[in-house]
């Protein structure tokens, strides 16, 4: 190691990161020579906890695995169990789940936008993003009873039906967000400082995508139309008409733009879901949790989160009602570890928060 190298830490608390993680940087002057990520600040041992609780009790603890976007955890957990136990979900429940997932996507994108601005120092837009996310959280409070951790999707359907007047409320919030997007464009996305800091930086091309197994906005920003919602047709997505958004450059600017364009995509999807929602039950009650012993089997289910492919592997051994093994696979596992070490070599230190926010590195997914 060179005598001129200095070791610096970014984290564990940083306005540019979505969770707690410590990046050890070895620097020569302004340039990063080596990054060593240190995770473990948010390790809560979920996979072991889930092995000691039965299927109904697990529903309450899984949203806490991914803090910015908790609904994807409930969704994939429910789908794994429905796959192993062959449970049918009513049509209306599928549409409600789709709407919840898309609202969560929007809320998580706003959060990500807030963290990006925090990292760049554009604090006005950071406060705007958190405030506008609050309107979506109000919708969740009306529907599910909780603002951040919803505990709403259970195996067999969803827990409650839409309250009266909910569709009108959702339409109000969507109109408000569409109007606000204009302001965001003017203040942030067309802002010279933002463009200067991100355009042409941290380019990810086809080779990196293949070697590091990337998914999500990073791949779409490089020009490949890969979206888990189209590849694995789940929930109500087969009935919804939407296009996958792609751009060509693959740099940090394109990744942020993709996320912004996907806000409009989510608004369009939610409008279609509300228009096409059928009537009926919302829950096929699962077997009494005290007597539920699923058959021996395993399942791997995938959902498209804001940052890429999010998957759960579940395994039952047929003798106990508790899962035998649950493994959570988050997209940050690829972008927050090996890719960071490769991409941040010989880059200036100011690119670090850009990296963390444009890829959406979420430490809770890595630590579980």
């Amino acid at each position, binding site marked *: 190691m060179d005598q001129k190298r200095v070791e610096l830490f970014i984290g564990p608390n940083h306005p540019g990161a979505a969770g707690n993680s410590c990046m050890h940087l070895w620097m020569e002057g302004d340039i990063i020579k080596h990054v060593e990520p240190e*995770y*473990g600040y948010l*390790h809560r*041992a979920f*996979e*072991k*906890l889930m092995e*000691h609780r039965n299927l109904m009790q697990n529903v309450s603890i899984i949203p806490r695995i991914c803090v910015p976007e908790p609904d994807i955890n409930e969704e994939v957990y429910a789908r794994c169990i429905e*796959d*192993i136990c062959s449970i049918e979900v009513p049509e209306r429940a599928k549409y409600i789940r789709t709407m919840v997932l898309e609202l969560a996507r929007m809320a998580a994108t706003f959060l990500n936008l807030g963290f990006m601005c925090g990292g760049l120092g554009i604090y006005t837009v950071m406060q705007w993003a958190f405030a506008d996310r609050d309107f979506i959280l109000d919708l969740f409070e009306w529907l599910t009873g909780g603002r951040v951790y919803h505990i709403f999707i259970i195996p067999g359907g969803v827990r409650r039906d839409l309250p009266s007047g909910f569709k009108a409320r959702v339409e109000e919030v969507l109109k408000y967000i569409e109007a606000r997007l204009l302001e965001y464009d003017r203040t942030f996305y067309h802002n010279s400082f933002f463009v200067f800091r991100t355009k042409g930086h941290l380019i990810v091309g086809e080779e990196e995508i*293949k*070697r*590091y*197994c990337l998914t999500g906005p990073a791949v779409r920003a490089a020009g490949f139309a*890969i979206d888990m919602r189209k*590849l694995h047709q789940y929930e109500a997505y087969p009935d919804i008409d939407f296009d996958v958004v792609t751009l060509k450059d693959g740099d940090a600017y394109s990744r942020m733009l993709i996320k912004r364009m996907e806000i409009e995509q989510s608004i369009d999807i939610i409008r279609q879901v509300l228009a096409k929602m059928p009537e009926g039950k919302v829950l096929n009650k699962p077997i009494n949790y005290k007597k539920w012993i699923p058959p021996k*089997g*395993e*399942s*791997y*289910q995938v959902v498209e989160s804001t940052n890429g*492919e999010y*998957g759960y*592997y579940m*395994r039952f051994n047929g003798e106990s009602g508790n899962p*035998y*093994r649950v*493994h959570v*696979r988050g997209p940050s*596992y*690829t972008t927050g*570890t*090996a*890719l960071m070490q*490769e991409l941040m070599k010989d880059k200036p230190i100011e690119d670090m928060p850009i990296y963390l926010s444009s890829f959406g590195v979420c430490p809770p997914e*890595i*630590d579980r």
Partner: protein
Amino acid sequence: MSEKGIDLIKWLASQGIQAQDGPSKGIISLNVPREQFIFVIQSLHREGFDYLATITCVDLQNQHCELIYNVYSFDLNMRLFVRVVVGYEEKMPTVLHLWPNARFYEREIYEMFGIGFTGNPDYAKPFILEGNDPIEVKFPMRKSFDSIEFSQTNYGDRDYGSKKS
């Protein structure tokens, strides 16, 4: 399943690897012995299964663990589980040269389950656990690790004796 997928399964069968219809729709399991593992995984990588989602480890409680390599092919839209049963004391060959992400996956598996990897220089570096608890935490995801005892010894219980009833 597509034509190319069926050819692939036939070719693997000719090499002695039997494919089973695995969990979920669209997933096929291959049970591979440890000695043939590198050959199989490299052939799959060549044939288009170049997306490694994750490496999962399951403790089978008879001094063996099962490693499941979750590979996916975008062209065929097909997922494969490559399963290897490995003993607690044995070491697996690494796939670092195919996927650089595996450096971290294998670090986590060693820290939680105790399976070593030859060819990966950092596999024994601590990744997630802090390492400074009063009682030593060694390979906590194995079924033999008692998490309740760990929690009682390190953190104790809160007593509500004065307020009960």
